[in-house]
């Protein structure tokens, strides 16, 4: 497996970024769910982890987008129908947009609530806006709404991958698997 993408296969860096972000997003959801029922110090700490992981996703998203621009994108199979290509394109654009928009709305929320963002206590991100309760509530709603959109688009993405694998019986799913793949 090469480090870079080719016209037929995803490189190891793309795969690593894809799966690390998947794991981090699931972890984010789990921490956020848990934080809802916590209070005081425990909630503060849970949300500190959520913010640190969220900013990690944002930084990985930047690397991922740059890497996509610098690399060829393996094509879908020749049998893939235009409507499938269209749907794939839309969901991929949305997924990329969401891995930026989720952390950014989270960061805005934190700034608006005067709870600045630290990255695992290693360094602190600057505040994006001055404290504002109205803005906090707006960003909070948006953050939750975007998560709902993410769940729907991710489900579509998984459904598409499974269709390629089990119905069309092509390599589209296999070529993104960590150690599987296409030569």
């Amino acid at each position, binding site marked *: 497996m090469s480090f870079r993408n080719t016209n037929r296969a995803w490189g190891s860096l793309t795969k690593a970024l894809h799966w690390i972000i998947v794991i981090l997003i699931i972890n984010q959801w789990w921490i956020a769910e848990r934080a809802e029922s916590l209070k005081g110090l425990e909630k503060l700490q849970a949300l500190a982890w959520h913010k640190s992981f969220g900013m990690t996703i944002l930084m990985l998203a930047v690397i991922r987008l740059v890497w996509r621009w610098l690399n060829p994108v393996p094509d879908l199979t020749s049998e893939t129908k235009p409507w499938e290509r269209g749907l794939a394109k839309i969901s991929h654009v949305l997924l990329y947009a969401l891995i930026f928009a989720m952390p950014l709305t989270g960061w805005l929320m934190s700034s608006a609530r005067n709870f600045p963002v630290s990255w695992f206590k290693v360094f*602190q991100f600057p505040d994006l806006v001055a404290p504002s309760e109205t803005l906090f509530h707006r960003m909070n709603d948006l953050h939750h709404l975007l998560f709902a959109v993410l769940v729907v688009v991710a489900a579509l993405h998984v459904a598409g991958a499974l269709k390629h694998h089990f119905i069309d019986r092509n390599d589209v799913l296999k070529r993104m698997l960590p150690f599987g793949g296409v030569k």
Partner: protein
Amino acid sequence: MANYRISLAAAAVLLTGACHASAAAPAARWIQAPGSSLTFTFDQAGAASKGAFRQFSTELVYDEKSPATGSLNVKVQIASIDTQDQERNEMLVGADLFDAKKFPTAQYVASSFARTAAGGLEAVGKLTLRGVTKELRLPLKIVPTTAGLELSGATAIKRLEYGVGQGDWQSTEGVADEVKIQYKVVLTKAK
């Protein structure tokens, strides 16, 4: 009767004269005016966060010519704490942190000022916070303004020494022990 009055007036003149002689320049009393701020910076989960006390009062006795004779008295209304978040403000005034019900005010009292090695001025006094009194030297910069004086400076205290943080909050994992304090007080001459 007339003589008596005159002698009384003379005595008064003499007395005031005597007072002036003993304390060459009586230190003026200054009180806090609008535009003053008392802010603090605390490390919350690795991020420096800011807050303020919106209500506090300051009284300063200060004479530029002999700063050591001055005094400073600051009273802070704990319930006026403002971290721009209602939930956090309520948590802060709660029993485990400032316990504003039991300890509604914090007070700093200094009855003398000293010169620091660097040539600056500092108040030599005591801070009472959450019922705990500790010695604390406050660096002060006092400059004249058109309206009077401006007193400013910054220091740092350890919140746990004053018991601000009981139970879970004794841990410094969420909120660091050291809290930085910044003050800028606008003062006008008391009448």
